[in-house]
């Protein structure tokens, strides 16, 4: 049962990748398209069963501990599967609406599924080495997706992305090597020394001085993949240049997958060197990330980059919640992962359609009066932006409130105040730009825009419905969230 569930989750996207590679991607309802969406749906079902299974029986390990599913991995898998399904569904329309070549479509299909597979392995990894390899694999696969459009800017973005992320993740590997060194000297054998469960169980025996350096490097490296400063320069470029469904996956889940890795290291560090060490580090990273995001949002003229900086803002908030570190705080952070993921997915998919309508111009000023010209697209994009800004009933409202309350209760009142002042700045910037895009008066005569088709609108509507459902009734996942927070040692 355990083995089947875990291996199925990894095999589904791989099988879909193989089908896309063999069959090619011809039309909206071709074999490859159907298998891609089918695999995404099955992955979601598998994630649901796994989530129920681990909440009932506790963590399960397979493949000699290399893979492991606990409440945190089950929750992350659920988010990955949901957003992958939405992005995959939207890819049908993306590829149908003016894709250049059959070769390009085939490549897109294969890489997209490999990307999902790598994230699946990353959330189900039970061994720090496997986690590292999987996160690095996401960089390799997405590099080609970022440069997919083969323009100068796409190439520039891909270069920065690969160089910064692979250097950062190499630094994280140095951290993992040092954890292994400390663990071997704490009496763990070579099979256990990178095993996350064994490391957390014996973390009190790790040498504190070495563990501090190790965890610092690992958090810096995985933090870069999560879009935290100081190695964040790749993020706005890569997220704005990638095809819309890929941006949705990268921004909606890949950042959070890397952040979940940071939470795993936090569980080790809190026992080995005390909670104060990472709390200080995460607070600095959180406030600096929020500050950078807010300042750059204020002057932003490009709406895809605006969405990218908004992702940094949300990841900064998650880091703040992680710094607070209580069970309530971590549960709120994990809810925020889902809320931000869904809202950002809809926003990026909407931005993709807007980009298509405006001949590839991603300037805010090029998109005035969208609500009047194409009400459905304008409305969906507007709702996604409102959700991102934290308006109820979207789940982001509940999770931001949760992070603020838990932060205050953990004695971080001043940090919460500074953080939310920065969030307010970002709020003002985002709402003005969105206002211009939706309601602004067009410079010239308003050209009528073709209405958004049902097939294209469906994934966006589904995402928004899920977001509101999660915000109004979170009781079905409440237990899973608390269990996931407990997994990483929050009390």
């Amino acid at each position, binding site marked *: 049962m355990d083995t089947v569930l875990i291996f199925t989750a990894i095999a589904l996207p791989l099988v879909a990748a193989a089908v896309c590679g063999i069959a090619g991607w011809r039309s909206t309802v071709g074999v490859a398209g159907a298998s891609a969406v089918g695999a995404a749906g099955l992955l979601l079902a598998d994630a649901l069963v796994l989530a129920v299974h681990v909440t009932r029986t506790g963590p399960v390990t397979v493949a000699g501990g290399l893979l492991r599913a606990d409440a945190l991995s089950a929750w992350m898998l659920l988010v990955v599967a949901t957003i992958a399904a939405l992005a995959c569904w939207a890819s049908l329309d993306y590829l149908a609406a003016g894709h250049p070549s059959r070769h390009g479509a085939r490549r897109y299909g294969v890489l997209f599924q490999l990307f999902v597979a790598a994230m699946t392995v990353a959330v189900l990894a039970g061994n720090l080495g496997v986690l*590292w*390899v999987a996160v690095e694999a996401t960089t390799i696969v997405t590099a080609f997706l970022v440069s997919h459009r083969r323009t100068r800017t796409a190439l520039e*973005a891909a*270069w920065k992305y*690969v160089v910064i992320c692979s250097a950062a993740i190499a630094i994280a590997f140095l951290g993992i090597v040092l954890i292994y060194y400390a663990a071997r000297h704490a009496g763990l054998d070579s099979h256990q020394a990178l095993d996350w469960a064994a490391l957390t169980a014996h973390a009190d025996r790790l040498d504190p*001085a070495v563990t501090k350096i190790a965890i610092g490097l690992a958090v810096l490296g995985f933090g870069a993949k999560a879009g935290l400063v100081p190695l964040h320069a790749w993020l706005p470029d890569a997220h704005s240049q990638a095809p819309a469904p890929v941006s949705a996956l990268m921004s909606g889940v890949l950042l959070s997958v890397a952040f979940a890795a940071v939470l795993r290291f936090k569980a080790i560090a809190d026992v080995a060197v005390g909670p104060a060490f990472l709390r200080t580090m995460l607070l600095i990273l959180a406030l600096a990330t929020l500050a950078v995001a807010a300042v750059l949002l204020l002057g932003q003229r490009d709406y895809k980059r605006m969405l990218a900086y908004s992702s940094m803002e949300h990841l900064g908030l998650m880091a703040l919640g992680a710094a607070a570190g209580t069970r309530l705080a971590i549960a709120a952070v994990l809810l925020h992962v889902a809320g931000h993921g869904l809202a950002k997915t809809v926003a990026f998919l909407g931005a993709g359609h807007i980009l298509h309508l405006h001949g590839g111009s991603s300037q805010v000023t090029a998109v005035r009066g969208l609500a009047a010209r194409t009400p459905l697209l304008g409305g969906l994009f507007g709702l996604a932006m409102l959700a991102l800004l934290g308006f109820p009933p979207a789940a982001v409202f509940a999770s931001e409130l949760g992070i603020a309350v838990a932060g205050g209760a953990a004695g971080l009142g001043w940090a919460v105040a500074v953080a939310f002042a920065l969030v307010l700045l970002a709020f003002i910037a985002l709402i003005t730009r969105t206002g211009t895009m939706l309601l602004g008066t067009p410079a010239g005569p308003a050209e009528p825009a073709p209405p958004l088709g049902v097939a294209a609108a469906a994934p966006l509507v589904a995402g928004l419905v899920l977001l509101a459902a999660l915000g109004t009734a979170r009781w079905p996942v409440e237990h899973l969230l608390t269990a996931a927070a407990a997994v990483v040692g929050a009390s």
Partner: protein
Amino acid sequence: MSEAAYTQILNICAGFFLLAAVGMLSRRQFAGMIRLYAAQGLALAAIVTVLGIREGSVELLAAAVGLVILRVLVLPALARRALGAALHNRRETSPAVSIAGSLLASAALVLVAYAVARPLIALDPSATTAVLPIALSVVLIGLFALTTRHNALSQVIGFLLLDNGITATAFLATSGVPLIVELGVSFDVLLIVVVLTLLTVRLQAMFGTTDLDGLRELRD
């Protein structure tokens, strides 16, 4: 092997390892940098061989062979392929820090590495861990090259230098992480270099240069 001989041979290999890294910073010609990188790969393999002989570990000796194949043969060949695409600029023309400055900085970085490595040596003082600061110096020099060099190929070489330093740290501190992880990591590094090489070739085709100063369109 006697303790004294082991210490001496290990120190000599580590010395060459560091020297190659500093040498790469002092070069402007890419061909020379790649040759030095291959030499550094040999020094790394020698370090692992010495460790393997001392511990009588066949696994380490096999790892040394793997290192020679990957880092002395395959990766330099890939880098040369990228160089072939960049016929017109075979030199690093615009480092942010001059060559002399780079050499001074690398001396400072070695000192930093010695300071950082103190807790690592304190955990297990031995002839092997005494060499750890050298490996960390190469990590820092690699990061330095990555941040101050503005040519695509120089950045690839900086990344490779960083990776060599980390691999050396892994073998010196722990006789290597478990084999399956080591394999995964090597495979990932190989793929990263393939990706970077492909991107370099495309950059050359699209921009007519591999100098990244031309990449200035995306900024705030």
